[in-house]
Every structure is written in C-alpha cells, then in structure tokens.
C-alpha cells in the first residue's frame, strides 16, 4: 500500500524553504516541441513570491531551448529534514537579467563558484521565473525508524530582542576596542549560542580582510587574510549583504565538478582554491558585513558542522551584532581622547647580558609592505608591521617601553591613511598576533590610550628591501 499523493494548492511556497536550500539537488524536466524530454539537476531555486519561483540558468542550453518551444516544466524537490518530496508543475513566465530576483540568485550561484575560486568563470546568465501551476506533496513512503537527520543537530534557542539587548549591554561596558572584540566573541558564544565564529576587519586600503579574533577553531588564525570579494566572506564585504550557505559540502562537491569540467575542456587552468576553515566537516557558514556610516569595517562570520545551521533569524541577529562592532570601530578615533596620565619618561631598559641573558631574536622588516619576520617566521605586515618596527626601533635606540596611542597615530613613518585611521584595530591585531605566536615581544595595555612594550629577548633589527 502506498502513501496518498497530496495536492497542495493551498500550501504556501515559503513552507518549502528547506527544500529550496539545495541540500538535495533539485531536478527539472522539460520537453521540446517534438515531445522529447530533458531532465537535469539545478544548483539553486529561489522563491520569488507566493506563486512564483526563480531557477538559476548557467548551462541550461537544452532546457532553455525546450522552454522556448514549450513553456512547461516539472520540478522535483526534497526537503532534507523530512524527505518529503514536492513535485511542482511550472509555467515559464519570464527571464530576468537584472533586479532583486536576479541579484539574489546571482549571490547564491556566486557562493557556489566561490567554493573553488570560479567567480570569474561560473556566473549566472539569467534567472528564469516560473509560475507554480500545481504543487503536489509526497510524504516519505514510510515513517523513518529514527527522526535523526544527519548533520543537522540540536537547534539553538531563538534569538529575540532580549538576547540582543544582553549582547548590546555587554558591549557598551567595554572600555576599549580590544575589550569589545573579546566581549563580542564571548557574547556570540555565551549569549547567541554560536560555537565557531570569526571577526575580520577591512585593511587600510579596503582591499583585504584580516582576522582579528576567532573562537572555536583549532588555530586562532589571527592575521589570516582574504581578499574583499573573494569567497563567501569576501563577497559579504564587497556586496554589503549577508551571505549564507547551509550545505557547503554539497556546494563544494558541485563546484569542484564544474571546475573540473572547465579544466577538462580548456576553459581555465588549474588555479588557487580558497582554503576552507579548519573545521573537520564544515557545512554551514553565515558571513555578515559590519557596516557603520555607510562604510564596511569588517565581516562577522559564524560557522557550523551542522547542515542548514543558520536561518534568516541568524542573519538579522548578526547584522545587529556586526553593526555594534562597526559603530564602535567608527567611533574609536573620537573615543580615544587624551591618555589618563602622561606617559612617563621610562628609564632605558636594556636586555640583560651574561650567562642568563635571553636569547637573541632576529627581527627582519620589509619597508615596501611592512612585512615583519621573527627569526625567519612571518609575523605580520601592513600598518601593524610598521607600528611594531617603529616601537622596536624606539625601544632599541632610546630604551623606551611606555607609549601612547596618540603618538603612534601621529608617527609619519607609519603612513596611516587619513580617512582609514583605524589605528586601534591595528594595535589589537598586533597585540593578539604577538600573543598567538608566543613572541618575545608583547604589548600590554596600561591605561586608556596607553600601552607598554614588553621585550624578553635581545633583538637584532634588520631593515631589508
């Protein structure tokens, strides 16, 4: 005995959202004027309104040809959480090459392409919009013995206004950006319930994002970089919209298949593949731009090994959280003010000599891009590298250990961009990077707008290049 097939004319399309996510690829059948059918897989399906859906059209040559002759199609979807099948009878309505529907679908397709660095090759040509003429629901043929859905774990508690208020309250008590970044990371975990999160900031040229803090990864990865526009995270910054993927394993597999197809036929050569974050089985990622004063300051990222871990509710919650960080960074230059006390003229501190003298560390600095190496190992570059070089030079020549943010900000050798003067974030990056590398040089905050350079080795400074 088989389960009844349920006509579901009244079922709202938004009830099919899980099936639209592409965890199980959709199947579309069309037929030409001569009655020859064609059947193929689809990478993305998007709901347009209560009666219409949009399908991505990248390689739809035969499907497009059939639709030109016969505007009817049949679409098979599966909800991965219940294995309920949906059979949609479609009528082709129009093709869009711009506008919000096209852009939403383009973002989806670009996210797939970004998995293997194919943004420039694998692009959405058009969004084909169809009217849903009929919807049939096909329940699973039998009750599953277990309701467990592999890869989709226990849902987090819903994020409500009270939760966001608690997060906001934690952030507002932070005396400086360093504390705020820490509070944001712990808040994302303790208050919002995310297990893996990253905060990346835009560099001084607005071209790259660098990791300033992370939680829940084997390596902290402070200072790791990604280009604005590259991958899901870079695209969130470039387009100023949240980017969400709930089936990264499936997307990566699909993207690799397409890439191999292009390579096999000479379309592209082997290229750089964006390395995935170091989670053993990453399946969901949500990247939200941190925007304030009409400017992107960074990207807040949460990730999960669970499939379909994040929803639009998470997008909304993280958008609020990211805007709090962005606003704090935007306000930082105004907030710094004068130091609590003037920096003392520190007595020169010289490293000890003799048998117990600390080991010598070779610091090599490249002025061209601020790249700095400790004993041959890369440490940091850019403004943060120049700051360190300046501090170490003053330490070595004058024995200084006490500094103020203000004097660093006014140091002409740092080449701080006038309009992107986020010095504080560079100091935090430098401080965290030194700690992560267990370097013999540390930065310790000593008061508002003040810090101390702690050097525990003899330094040999070399300016190269």
């Amino acid at each position, binding site marked *: *005995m*088989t389960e009844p*097939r349920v006509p579901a004319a009244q079922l709202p399309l938004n009830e099919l959202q899980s099936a639209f996510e592409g*965890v*199980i690829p959709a*199947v*579309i*059948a*069309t*037929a030409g*004027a001569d*009655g*020859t*059918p*064609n*059947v*193929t*897989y689809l*990478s993305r399906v998007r709901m347009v309104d209560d009666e219409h859906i949009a399908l991505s059209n990248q*390689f739809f*040559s*035969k499907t497009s040809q059939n639709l030109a002759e*016969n505007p*009817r*199609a*049949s*679409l*098979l979807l*599966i909800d*991965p959480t*219940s*294995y309920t099948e949906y*059979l949609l*009878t479609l009528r082709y309505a129009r093709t869009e090459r711009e506008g919000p529907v096209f852009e939403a679908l383009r973002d989806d397709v670009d996210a797939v392409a970004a998995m293997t660095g194919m943004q420039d090759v694998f692009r959405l040509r058009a969004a084909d919009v169809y009217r849903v003429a009929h919807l049939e629901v096909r329940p*699973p*043929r*039998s*009750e*599953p*013995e*277990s309701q*467990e*859905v*592999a*890869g989709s774990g226990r849902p987090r508690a819903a994020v409500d206004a009270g939760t966001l208020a608690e997060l906001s309250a934690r952030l507002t008590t932070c005396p400086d950006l360093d504390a705020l970044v820490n509070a944001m990371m712990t808040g994302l975990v303790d208050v919002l319930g995310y297990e893996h999160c990253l905060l990346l900031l835009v560099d001084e040229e607005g071209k790259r994002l660098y990791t300033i803090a992370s939680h829940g990864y084997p390596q902290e990865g402070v200072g790791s970089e990604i280009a604005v526009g590259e991958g899901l995270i870079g695209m969130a910054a470039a387009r100023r919209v949240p980017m969400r993927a709930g089936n990264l*394993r*499936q997307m990566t*597999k*699909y993207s690799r*298949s*397409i890439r*191999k*197809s*292009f390579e*096999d*036929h000479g*379309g592209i050569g082997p290229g750089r593949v964006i390395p995935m974050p170091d989670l053993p*089985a990453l*399946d969901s990622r949500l990247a939200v731009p941190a925007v304030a004063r009409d400017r992107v300051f960074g990207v807040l990222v949460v990730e999960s090994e669970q*499939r379909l871990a994040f929803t639009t509710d998470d997008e909304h919650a993280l958008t609020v959280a990211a805007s709090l960080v962005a606003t704090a960074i935007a306000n930082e230059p105004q907030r710094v003010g004068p130091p609590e006390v003037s920096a003392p003229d520190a007595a020169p501190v010289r490293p000890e000599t003799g048998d117990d003298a600390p080991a010598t560390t070779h610091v090599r600095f490249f002025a061209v891009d601020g790249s700095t190496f400790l004993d041959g190992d890369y440490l940091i570059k850019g403004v943060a590298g120049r700051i360190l070089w300046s501090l170490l030079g003053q330490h070595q020549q004058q024995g200084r250990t006490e500094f103020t943010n203000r004097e660093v900000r006014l140091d002409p050798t740092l080449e701080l961009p006038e309009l992107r003067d986020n010095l504080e974030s560079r100091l935090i990056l430098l401080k965290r990077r030194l700690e992560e590398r267990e370097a013999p040089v540390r930065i310790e905050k000593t008061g508002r707008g003040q810090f101390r350079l702690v050097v525990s080795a003899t330094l040999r400074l070399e300016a190269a290049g």
Partner: protein
Amino acid sequence: MPFDPETLTRLQEGASLVLGTVSTSGEPHAGRGWGIATSPEQPDAIRLLLDASDDVTIRHCDDGGRVALTIGNVRTYKSLQIKGSAVEVSPIGPDDTALAERYCEDFFRAVVQVDRHSRAMLESWRPRDFVACTIRVESMYDQTPGPRAGAAVAEGGP
C-alpha cells in the same frame, strides 16, 4: 546493446537516477528510477525500475512516450543522459527485486558517505513497490554540470 552489464553496473553504482517523461499533450514530468538492467532480449534497450506509486510516470511510459534518464554519480556529479522511448511497462520479477535492493544499497551508502544524510531517513524514501519499464535507447549525452553539458556521447557508450 548500448551497455554491457559491467558498464551499466559501474554507471549506476552510487548514482541517482532521475527521469523526464512527457504526456501525449506535451506536459513534462520529473520522476525517479530505482535500478537499471540490460535487456538480453532487446539489445538496444534497458529495463528501468520505477516507483509503482508514480502514476504519472507510469502513464507516460504506458503511452509509449519518449523518456530522458540521467544517471548522476553522487560522489563526482559526473552524469550521463540517455534518451529513448518507452516500449512497455510490466510487473517486476525476482531479479528486479534483487536489482532494486542492490541499487538502493549502493545509492544510499554513497549518499550517507558523501552527503552525511541519515540512513534511516533515506530508507523512508525507498518505494514500497516497483514496476519495470523497458526503454529503447536512441542517444546518449554528457550531462555533467559545466560547459559541455548536453554534448552527445559517441556511439559505444561512456
């Protein structure tokens, strides 16, 4: 014969089978297949198992309509599309039952391994009954996603 049995076994192992059929009035319909066998009596044909509850697919095949069958490897997305015409729909025999069992085992194992779906959920998807459709194969196409999707596959098979 379009495939020798070994080639067919290799093609459908860990592969999804999706089917496009069409009504006499030109309405397309998407469905699924649940195992393919060669047909010794008809060298140019294959025997495809269908979900016995998929009334629309069965009606289209009963009417002798044209058929498109895509065999898509779950692990690699490498896909082959077969086009042809339905010759007849018939009840299944013991060999077909064994084929369906074997196909589901291979397919479900691949999905669990590659996509981490729950085996229990997949089992709830398995049809309770099957029918067999004989399809006369007329042409084959590379359906792997990418710039070559839709290109004809040379005679002699994949």
